[in-house]
């Protein structure tokens, strides 16, 4: 097989048609019988049967409150829940007790931000997390609101100052001024790993090196990276990584915060209540070590177990193979869509250091209208600012139409997309 052919069809062992059979939703039709072309996995991914079955099995056979009972069901539920934690840990090369289950990536990021403001009224071991006036919090212009607003709010609570990296015309992070953006005053640098709008994969090593030089912690929003490429926290060199289960073939209602053990151990709790306590008296409470410290109340048990099944599924297919398949799709889409006249790609136009998220604008047309016509053709894309409004402002556009690809997408679907865009233009001409 020539390199080009391989680029066009994906790695030889990757059988998309077989994989698609694992996803019941992909079999349905929309808008009066059209086959569904689902290009919105960046918003949420579809679920394989293995995940649905894992959740259902839990409810039908083992459902009990974890960490709380001494009966057989509770033992089984515990084992499944903690087993899921171990699976997720292995999936990203972490230690099991470094994995905190949250409800989504957003909660994971809020957890760190609130823990930092809580540090001001916590014990001396939390001192390194305290932020206040004069301190700086660094983000970028390409952040999803979920990795921007929590930091704005941290600044509002504490009097710290928000700073940010700019984005260049290609949709790449402008790191030329890294030393002036991340200064000695920086306490935390929060950055998206892979942009959910333009697909850019950011150079975490450059950022982390500078952040660590000045003693800042590095919080990475992995909502769009962990589902799509092999991620090994040992190699990333960052301190925290948040991601969502629903974007990686797992259930809704579960996310993950990974943190370095020694940092988690020193951090004050965020949500408090049942199961995260050590000793409770009316006059005060002490807390469990992580991860329990950060999981208050009866957890999203079935969802964590479903996520465990999802990482098994993804590992079974192979994250490297998935990444290569997506690279092939991305290259193909960039060339197919980029070649349409009157269509402009927003973001890197080549496949290097970018993921399978292709945003574009159609001259003279609003993304809503583009999306609506595509929808009518059975093609599900997302339109608008994609929860990264400052980035749309950066490009001076109302938003984009965005197609995102995952393991179950095909080259044929990209052809359908390209033909669809053509139909859109004809419809409004």
């Amino acid at each position, binding site marked *: 097989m020539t390199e080009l052919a391989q680029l066009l069809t994906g790695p030889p062992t990757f059988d998309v048609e077989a994989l698609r059979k694992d996803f019941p939703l992909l079999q349905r039709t929309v*808008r*009066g019988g059209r086959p569904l072309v689902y290009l919105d996995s960046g918003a949420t991914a579809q679920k394989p049967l293995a995940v649905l079955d894992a959740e259902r099995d839990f409810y039908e056979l083992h459902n009990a409150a974890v960490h709380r009972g001494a009966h057989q069901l509770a033992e089984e539920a515990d084992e499944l829940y903690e087993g899921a934690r171990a699976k997720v840990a292995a999936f990203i090369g972490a230690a099991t007790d470094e994995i905190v289950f949250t409800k989504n990536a957003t909660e994971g990021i809020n957890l760190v931000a609130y823990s930092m403001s809580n540090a001001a009224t916590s014990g001396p071991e939390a001192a390194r997390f305290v932020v206040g006036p004069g301190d700086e919090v660094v983000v970028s212009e390409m952040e999803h609101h979920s990795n921007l607003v929590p930091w704005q709010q941290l600044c509002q609570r504490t009097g710290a100052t928000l700073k940010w990296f700019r984005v260049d015309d290609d949709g790449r992070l402008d790191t030329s001024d890294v030393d002036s953006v991340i200064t000695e005053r920086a306490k935390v640098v929060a950055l998206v790993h892979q942009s959910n709008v333009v697909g850019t994969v950011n150079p975490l090593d450059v950022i982390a090196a500078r952040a660590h030089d000045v003693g800042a912690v590095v919080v990475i929003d992995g909502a769009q990276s962990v589902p799509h490429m092999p991620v090994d926290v040992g190699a990333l060199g960052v301190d925290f990584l948040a991601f969502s289960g629903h974007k990686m073939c797992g259930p809704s209602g579960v996310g993950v915060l990974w943190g370095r053990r020694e940092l988690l151990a020193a951090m004050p709790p965020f949500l408090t209540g049942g199961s995260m306590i050590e000793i409770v008296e009316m006059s005060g409470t002490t807390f469990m070590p992580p991860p329990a410290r950060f999981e208050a109340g009866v957890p999203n048990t079935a969802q964590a177990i479903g996520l465990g099944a999802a990482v098994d599924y993804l590992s079974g297919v192979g994250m490297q193979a998935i990444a290569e398949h997506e690279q092939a799709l991305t290259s193909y889409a960039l060339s197919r869509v980029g070649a349409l006249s009157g269509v402009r790609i927003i973001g890197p136009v080549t496949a290097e250091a970018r993921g399978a998220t292709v945003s574009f604008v159609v001259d003279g047309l*609003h*993304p*809503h*209208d583009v999306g*609506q*016509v595509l929808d*009518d053709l059975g093609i599900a894309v997302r*339109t*608008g*600012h994609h929860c990264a*409004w400052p980035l*749309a402002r950066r490009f001076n556009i*109302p*938003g984009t139409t965005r197609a995102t690809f995952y393991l179950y997408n095909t080259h044929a679907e990209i052809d359908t997309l390209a033909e669809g865009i053509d139909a859109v233009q004809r*419809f*409004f001409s």
Partner: protein
Amino acid sequence: MQLESMYQEIILDHYKHPHRRGLREPYDAEVHHVNPACGDEVTLRVRIEGGRVADVSYDGMGCSISQASTSVLTDLVVDQPLEQALAVQEAFLSLMQSRGQAEPDDDLLEDAVAFVGVSQYPARIKCALLGWMAFKDATAQAASRPVTSEGVTA
């Protein structure tokens, strides 16, 4: 395609050739509304004179539906008694919440009946309402201010 039910000819016409677009003086109130889900926005001014809507001017960015519906709005309310304009606004609001089931009052809504197809697409209802909710807000603000004959009030 079912699309034609949403993008009726009349809507596309207003989109391509919007009426009364641009911001003008004098005005009694100016409001800025956004649709947070997509980022569409409109700045809209109203001028009330002797109990009538003397002018509605606007600017903003948005999809065909939001642009066209604001254009249609101005046709229906400008030069009307304020009371009549608000009745039209109410009628349009009900139409949009009808999920395509309404039998709209053609006399009252005129061109705006074309939006009945949009009401079947829940995600687009807010687009169609953007300018109309801004108009409602602006007239309420204008009403709560001292009457002037000059335009801009503090």
